[in-house]
C-alpha cells in the first residue's frame, strides 16, 4: 500500500478505465450511426446504462456506452467495450460478468453487480440488433 491517497480497493486496471474510460458516446448518436441500442437499469436504483452497437461484416465495429454509475460500472463497461470490439455478436454474448471482472484484475465483492450491468446492457442491445435484422 502506498500512502498517496489514491490507493483504494480497486486494481490498477480498474483505475485506468475509470479515469480514462474508453468508447464513451459523448454526443447524441446521429441517425444511422448505430445498428441498435439498448438500455438497462433505472435512475432510482442508481444505475442506468445505455449502449449502442454498429456491426460491420458480421463483426462488432463499434460499441459505445454511457452510464450513470460508480467507478466499477464505468470501468467494467469500458473494459467490456474493448473486449467485444472485433467479435461477432454471438461471440460477444458469451462474455460473462466473471470474464469482465477477470479482465479488470478483480472487483471488490460488493461491486460485482456493477459488472453485471454491462453484460445485461449488451444482451439488451444484441436482442434489439437481432430484432432489427429480422425486420429487414
Amino acid at each position: 500500500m502506498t500512502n498517496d491517497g489514491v490507493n483504494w480497493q480497486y486494481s490498477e486496471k480498474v483505475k485506468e478505465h475509470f479515469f480514462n474510460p474508453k468508447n464513451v458516446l459523448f454526443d447524441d448518436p446521429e441517425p444511422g450511426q448505430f445498428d441498435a441500442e439498448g438500455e438497462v437499469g433505472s435512475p432510482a436504483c442508481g444505475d442506468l446504462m445505455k449502449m449502442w452497437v454498429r456491426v460491420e461484416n458480421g463483426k462488432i465495429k463499434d460499441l459505445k456506452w454511457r452510464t450513470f454509475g460508480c467507478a466499477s460500472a464505468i470501468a467494467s463497461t469500458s473494459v467490456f467495450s474493448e473486449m467485444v470490439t472485433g467479435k461477432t455478436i454471438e461471440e460477444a454474448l458469451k462474455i460473462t460478468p466473471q470474464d469482465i471482472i477477470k479482465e479488470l484484475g478483480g472487483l471488490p465483492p460488493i461491486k460485482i453487480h456493477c459488472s453485471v450491468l454491462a453484460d445485461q446492457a449488451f444482451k439488451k442491445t444484441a436482442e434489439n440488433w437481432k430484432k432489427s435484422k429480422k425486420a429487414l
Partner: protein
Amino acid sequence: MKKRIYLDHAATTYMDPRVKAAMEPYWEKNFGNPSSIYEEGRAAKKAIAGARLKVASVINARPDEIIFTAGGTESDNLAVFGLARSSVGGRTSHRPSHRPHIIVSKIEHHAILHPCQALGDFEISYISVDKNGIVGLEELKNTLKKETILVSIMYANNEIGSIQPIAEIAKIIRKHGGKVLFHTDAVQAPPYLDLNVLKLGVDLMTLNGSKIYGPKGIGCLYKKRNVKLKPILYGGGQEAGLRSGTENVPAIVGFAAALELAQKDREKESKRLEKLRNYFVERILKMEPSARLNGSLENRLPNNVNISFCGVEGESIVLYLDAKGVACSTGSACSSDSLEPSHVIMAIKTPPKYAHGSVRFTLGKKTIKKDIDYVLKVLPGIIKKLKNISAI
C-alpha cells in the same frame, strides 16, 4: 507526497498537537494500571480523575456521571443495551401489550439504529425528519406512550449536519412524564455547539474523541446520576462497574484535553467556518446549476456541506476528487455495502437522480479559503467529465 486537502472532518480529525502533548506522559512514563494501589497505579488513577473532572466541567455534569468508553459506537450501544436490559430486568421476551418501546429518529447513526434493531422483543418507532433533516416534534409527541423507555435523537447529524432542537425535545419528553429517558448522540457537536447537559435536558449523552481533534478509540457516555444502566462489558468493574477493562489512560487524558479545547474555541471557529462554508456552497450552486444542497443552511453545523449533483454518481466524484488531492465522502449507494443510498439522504426525500450523487465536504481547523478555492477550481471539470459519461 502531493499536498492533500482534507475535507472529511465529520469522518475523523487529525489530532491537535496540544492533545498529543497532553497524552505524551502516559505511554511510557506514567504507564501504571489505575487499579493498582502502588505509586504507578495511583498516578494513573489521578490522571483519570483529572480527565473526568475536566470532561464533567465542560458539559456541566458531575464527575461520577462520566463513563469513559472506547468511543461513540460503544457509548451508543451502552445507552441502548444498558438501558434496555436495566428496564426489563434482563428479560428479552414480553407480552405484546407490554413490549418496551424506544423512539429514535430516522437519521440516527447506525451505532444507534443497529443496536435498536438487535434488541429483539422491543418496539422501535422511527420519527421522520423534514426536508432539512429536523425531527417532527408533533410526531414525537404523538409517538410517546406509557411503554416508552427511551428516546434517542442525535444532536447534530453526521451526514447533513442538521442540528436538532434538543432542549425542546427534552421538554416534550418531560411533559409526557413517565420513566422515559432521553439520550443524544452528540459526537459531531463539541467543536460547534453548547454541550451543557442541564440546558440540553438530556439523561444520557454520547461523546467521542476522534471527531474533535482527539485520539481515536475513546469516548464517554454522560449518565445522569439517577439513571440505571446495566453494563454491556463485565470484568474488573472499572468505571463504577459500567465499563470493565483497564482504562485507556493516555486516550482518556487526550479526550478530555480535546473536548476542553473544542469547547473553548467553538464560537470563534464556528463563525470562521460558517463564513467559509457559505462561500463554498454559494459558489458551487452558482457554477453548477444541476447541484442541490441537501438540507438548508439554517440549523446546520457550520462546517457541513452536503451537495448532490444530478445524474452523476457520488462515488465517482469522490474518487475523481481524491485523484486531484481532495478527501471528501459520499452517501451514494456505491459507497456502502447495501447498494442503497444513505438512509439520511433518503429520509430528507432527496429525488433518486440526486440521491445517488451526494457528496459531503466537512471543513475543519486547518481548512482555509485557498483549499476551498482549489476544490472550486477542479470540481467543474470533474462534474462535466462524469456528466459526459452519464446516461442521464
